[in-house]
């Protein structure tokens, strides 16, 4: 009798703050990552207000100055304030990272679920095309896309998004294949629901967990890819403040005489990617029922 009472009791509902606190307690590294991501996001979105200088303004009276009270992280060869450029660079990284991850992730989600749902020839074609795209490492594929479309922020986003799509769709498809054979999907089909409704209402919500983890890791990958492309001169162009771009040109030329030009953007990239990866790992642990109770 008492067992029946326990089974029928509603699960304890946690508020957002309670859930967050629980996550922080259980995932200290993930919390650290989250803090880094939040700092990066806040920095990027409030750059106009917190950057001490215009990030593209040359100051020939302050060329290659070491860190000082006037310029906390020093200046580059044009006399541009490095701190301001790093702050604005966070925005570029976020725009490219988030846009690529979200667009690539959502496209992959739809394609992956559709591939699993329709199966047959559709699945075969989608998966073979994915195989072709995935045969190339992300950066090589991105290089090829930038070579075709040219440099610039929009093209960099496109270049990074394209190789992310099959990577996401492959993972989502594997989860969706299991869901496809679930009775509630059959029931939905039997009720005469359309493909779009079945995919969006019944299948997609059930693959959100792996999808979110993928998207999180994509943000870090996209930031690194953007930095790599910019470093190679194929990403965003001078004088746009971007971390990868800050590592090429002057950073290399003045590595021995003004090392701060290379060090600080490098640290910014490292912290951003570290933060996103730590947070992503923690999110995976938090969302995976098998890992959740460990």
């Amino acid at each position, binding site marked *: 009798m008492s067992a029946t009472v326990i089974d029928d009791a509603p699960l304890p509902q946690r508020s957002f703050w309670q859930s967050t606190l629980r996550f922080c307690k259980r995932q200290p590294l993930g919390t650290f990552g989250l803090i880094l991501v939040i700092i990066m996001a806040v920095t990027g979105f409030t750059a106009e207000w917190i950057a001490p200088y215009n990030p593209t303004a*040359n100051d*020939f009276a302050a060329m290659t100055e070491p860190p000082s009270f006037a310029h906390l992280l020093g200046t580059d060869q*044009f006399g541009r304030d490095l701190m301001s450029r790093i702050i604005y660079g966070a925005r570029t990284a976020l725009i490219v990272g988030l846009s690529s991850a979200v667009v690539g992730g959502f496209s992959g989600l739809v394609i992956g679920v559709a591939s699993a749902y329709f199966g047959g020839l559709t699945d075969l074609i989608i998966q073979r095309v994915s195989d072709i795209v995935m045969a190339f490492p992300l950066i090589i594929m991105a290089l090829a896309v930038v070579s075709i479309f040219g*440099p610039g922020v929009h093209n960099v986003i496109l270049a990074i998004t394209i190789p992310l799509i099959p990577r996401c769709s492959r993972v989502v498809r594997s989860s969706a294949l299991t869901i496809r054979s679930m009775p509630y999907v059959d029931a939905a089909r039997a009720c005469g629901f359309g493909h779009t409704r079945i995919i969006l209402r019944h299948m997609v919500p059930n693959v959100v967990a792996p999808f979110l983890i993928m998207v999180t890791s994509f943000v870090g990958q996209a930031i690194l890819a953007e930095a790599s492309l910019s470093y190679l*001169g194929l990403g965003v162009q001078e004088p*746009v403040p971007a971390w990868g771009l800050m590592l090429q*040109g*002057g950073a290399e*030329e*003045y590595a021995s005489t003004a090392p701060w030009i290379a060090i600080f953007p490098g640290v910014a990239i490292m912290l951003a990617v570290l933060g996103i990866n730590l947070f992503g790992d923690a999110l995976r642990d938090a969302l995976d029922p098998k890992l959740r109770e460990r």
Partner: protein
Amino acid sequence: MRAWFLATALVTGLLTNAQAQTPKQGGTLDYMIAADGGPSLDGHKETTYAVLHATAPFYSNLIRVNPENPSSTTDFICDLCTEMPTPTNGGLTYTFKIRKGVKFHDGSPLTAHDIAVSWNRIVFPPAGVSSAREASYPMVDSIEAPDDTTVVFKLKFPTLSFMPALADPWSYIYSAKVLEKDQHFYERNIMGSGPFKFAGQEIGQAMHGVRNPDYYHSGQPHLDGFNAIFAPKQQTRVDAMRADRAALEFRGMSPTARDQLVKELGDQVTVQESDWNCGNVFTPNHKRKPFDDVRVRRALFMAVDQWKGAEALRKIAIVRTVGGIVYPGSPFAATKDELSTFPGYATDMEKSRAEARRLLKEAGAEGLTVEMLNRNVDQPYIIVGTWLVDEFRKIGVTVTQNIVPTGPWLDKMRTGDFALAMEANCQMVVNPIADSGRYLPHDIYKENFAYHDDPVQVDIYNKMVRETDPAKARVLMRAYEKQILDIGAHQLPTLWFYRVVPMRSYVKGWKIGNSHYLNQNLANIWLDR
């Protein structure tokens, strides 16, 4: 005994010195080209060192600047001719006698006919053929080869600018037989008669040459071969020199790169420096709105503080001097007072920029946002471009850069697919009147990408090129310059370059000139190791 010892020491010293100066045969020179390859291999068509530095060793010229004195404006010597001619017929006829026994690399004989055909292709290009320097020869009436060893240039009017223009290192002598079959053969292939034979290329990466055993200058070339490596990033070139993966890069490096190499390599590196008949040019495309409006072009020019920019950028880039359309230091060049009346050369920048904003407002181009085409070469294109972007910001114009490799950069300019462009005006032997021909409208000078029309400018140029009195020619030059920089605001020459060439000390026999186009056939270079 003491006297004998001193005498022996003196003789030994002299001998050692003489031996040090005697070129050694053999070895392969690895050098770099500060670009990522050119659009084609045709020297008649192209204007970038990316092509010349890779292809000049394969070709011969009719005459050339003395490689021992490459900055000279008058010291020309024969390459394929046997003797420098004395003009006849009141300075209207130049008759060149041509060497016998010269062979192209395919074994076919090179005669006066090949020279005449090549020069006619440059001066009077046939339909469908692009000659970059066609406009440099308005004085030439005809070029003929009456026999296998004679080439005759007939001029329309006598001019002192003819011989310097004839020493153009781009004027490769091609095979008439090959051209007869295909006028575009040399855009994709190499077949010359120069000191080195083509030994292969990896497009955009490297060019290879091997010694031509049949070369007609006795004892040359000294090298067994060369590898030219394309490396657009300066730091890559510095690292390659530091690791001795390459001995030098002929175009030039920044003062900071020079200092770094000297500091690290000590006496293993030698530095040659020179003023440079080369500078960047900021070009608005007159066919694109709103740059069809002279007020907008003037406004952009007026935003630029060249004097302050020169002082700063000379520390980090291969630029040094503020100048107009003429090589600074030439008697034909404008003085600072003359320049400062033009937009882009103001000394009171507050006033100049206020006027620029007024002009933009008047033209309805306030808050203009536009893209500037630039070349993927850091020294100094990207640096100067980045500086200009910030100068334009000061009048409320937002400029982004589209930085692309050399090939697409030239292609976009040649097809007019740009709004603003950062290009260059690099010339050879200092020849102010001929050099300034590059500012003539596109219809006349095909490699001018402003795409403007200006009959007044053309009229002044035609008078200037015929003027034999230097003082009167200078007056005309000022009027011509005013038309380009001020009245028409067609193009803005930005800072003139300064050439710094650090090289591994074992590279001998090469002398720097005030043009990176000159003295590049490598025939006189030898390796002391």
